[in-house]
């Protein structure tokens, strides 16, 4: 395979390793060298676990040499948002405060499962402090730059996770999504980002933000990688009280089933307003490729976003209340004042938001009686410039930080599974389209994405500027 593995997806890379075309140790060492050399230019990684990664890679090579099965992700390097516990490393969650904690004594459940499948953890990735943001402009650990244009943000809060995959340093990574923190950076960096059904994947061993909304999920450059990783991660876990005890529903075996019989519609109303034309054009490109002519209205989506906003601010503030009392000066100024305000929210606003959530869930359930898949833009525009405070969407000037999640927030509010897929246009920055399904229909989403990938509508190559190999 020579050095072509550097642009390969996880499935292709593990195949090459299993066939002996390249060793896991070579892949690991070479990747670590690239990260060491190039990370200062993008600022994706915050901690690197070189020693344990090389040991694990050697163990994988030995397993293969012994003729044993090393797992479906054998030798594939990956990295995680720095809110995942990694044994031996302190879980930062993007904060200065948590940097004082002792190292974690065990890996998060998701990391354990990926390691059992043979994947090799290289380190942890930058994020907005405590996951509160869409920009990954972190006052403690710096800004993560977008590999497609280094003058622009990578998006957030899982910005390091999206950028590390987009630049090609790792074939996949993990992030977390509360209101869009996987989907927004995936769209802005031009990779796949999957937020599964709420409760489908264990969050045990991760630093939560707003528990009633938090999910974890993968970033990757191919649909088959997303399916493979998702399948590895599925399964009950008593360590996470919201993790489902439903048996896993594997996606990989159904990936090639196509879209025949699926009822697909484009979200109109709220999801067709407050966006740049190019963001809506991206949705049109996908709907055209799928021959979708139907539209669907998700009523009261603006209120759903509002309620998600209130719940997030309230739950997030409550989680950090002790530190907000005792050491507010140690928070990132960009998140501190938001948390402080969140701590003062009247209970009735929070409770009404949680009640509205049930109403909205029931309304969307009704929609899913008539359609299987809904398409919507991921962000209203391409990646803003680093430090940019406002953005102009049509005639309206709006703040960047709260509004990048305009289209993601109402959907995660009710726990829906959603994949943001990358759309590239000539001489333009990437955009994302959300493929949305009813709860626990995660596999339908990946079937649709697989079809689009086959048609050449979706692709997520390593960014050209820093591409290597």
């Amino acid at each position: 395979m020579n050095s072509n593995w550097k642009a390969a997806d996880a499935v292709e890379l593990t195949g090459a390793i299993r066939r002996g075309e390249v060793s896991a140790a070579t892949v690991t060492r070479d990747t670590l060298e690239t990260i060491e050399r190039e990370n200062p230019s993008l600022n994706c990684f915050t901690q690197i676990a070189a020693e344990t990664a090389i040991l694990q890679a050697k163990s994988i090579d030995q397993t293969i040499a012994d003729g044993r099965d090393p797992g479906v992700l054998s030798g594939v390097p990956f990295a995680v948002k720095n809110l995942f516990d990694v044994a031996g490393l302190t879980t930062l969650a993007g904060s200065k405060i948590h940097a004082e904690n002792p190292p974690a004594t065990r890996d998060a459940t998701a990391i354990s499962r990926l390691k059992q499948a043979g994947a090799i953890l290289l380190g942890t990735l930058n994020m907005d402090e405590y996951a509160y943001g869409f920009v990954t402009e972190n006052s403690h650990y710096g800004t993560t730059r977008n590999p497609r244009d280094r003058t622009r943000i990578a998006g957030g809060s899982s910005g390091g996770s999206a950028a590390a995959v987009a630049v090609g340093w790792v074939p996949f990574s993990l992030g977390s999504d509360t209101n869009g923190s996987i989907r927004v950076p995936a769209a802005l960096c031009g990779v796949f980002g999957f937020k599964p059904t709420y409760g489908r994947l264990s969050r045990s061993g991760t630093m939560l933000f707003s528990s009633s909304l938090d999910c974890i999920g993968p970033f990757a450059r191919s649909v088959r990688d997303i399916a493979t990783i998702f399948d590895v991660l599925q399964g009950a876990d008593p360590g996470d009280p919201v993790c489902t005890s439903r048996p896993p529903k594997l996606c990989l075996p159904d990936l090639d089933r196509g879209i025949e019989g699926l009822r697909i519609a484009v979200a109109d109303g709220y999801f067709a307003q407050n966006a740049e034309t190019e963001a809506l054009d991206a949705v049109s490109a996908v709907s055209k490729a799928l021959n979708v002519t139907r539209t669907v209205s998700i009523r009261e989506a603006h209120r759903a976003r509002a309620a998600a906003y209130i719940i997030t601010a309230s739950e997030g503030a409550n989680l950090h209340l002790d530190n907000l009392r005792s050491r507010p000066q140690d928070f990132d100024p960009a998140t501190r004042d938001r948390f402080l305000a969140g701590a003062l929210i009247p209970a009735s606003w929070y409770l009404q938001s949680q009640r509205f959530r049930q109403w909205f869930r029931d309304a969307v359930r009704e929609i899913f009686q008539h359609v299987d898949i809904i398409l919507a833009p991921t962000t209203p525009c391409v990646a803003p410039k680093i430090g940019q405070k406002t953005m102009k969407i049509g005639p309206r000037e709006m703040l960047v930080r709260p509004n990048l999640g305009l289209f993601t927030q109402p959907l995660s509010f009710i726990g829906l599974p959603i994949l943001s897929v990358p759309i590239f246009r000539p001489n333009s920055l990437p955009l994302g389209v959300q493929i949305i399904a009813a709860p626990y229909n995660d596999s339908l989403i990946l079937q649709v994405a697989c079809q689009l990938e086959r048609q050449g509508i979706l692709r997520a190559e390593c960014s050209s500027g820093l591409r290597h190999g």
Partner: protein
Amino acid sequence: MNAETIYWHQFIEQMSNIIDLPIAPESEPGVVENLQNIAEVAALVTEFSLPESIELAPQFTP
């Protein structure tokens, strides 16, 4: 409710006392700005009439 007509500084002073959350003077403008924003957003939720039968979303499973 009009978020711009609320005396936010007084609200912050009283509420932060009640819940024992000191707010430094340099944070106050940012907290006021965020609270105004939250209040505007909250109005979208509170003005929406819900049937009494609608329960809270989080479910506790012992």
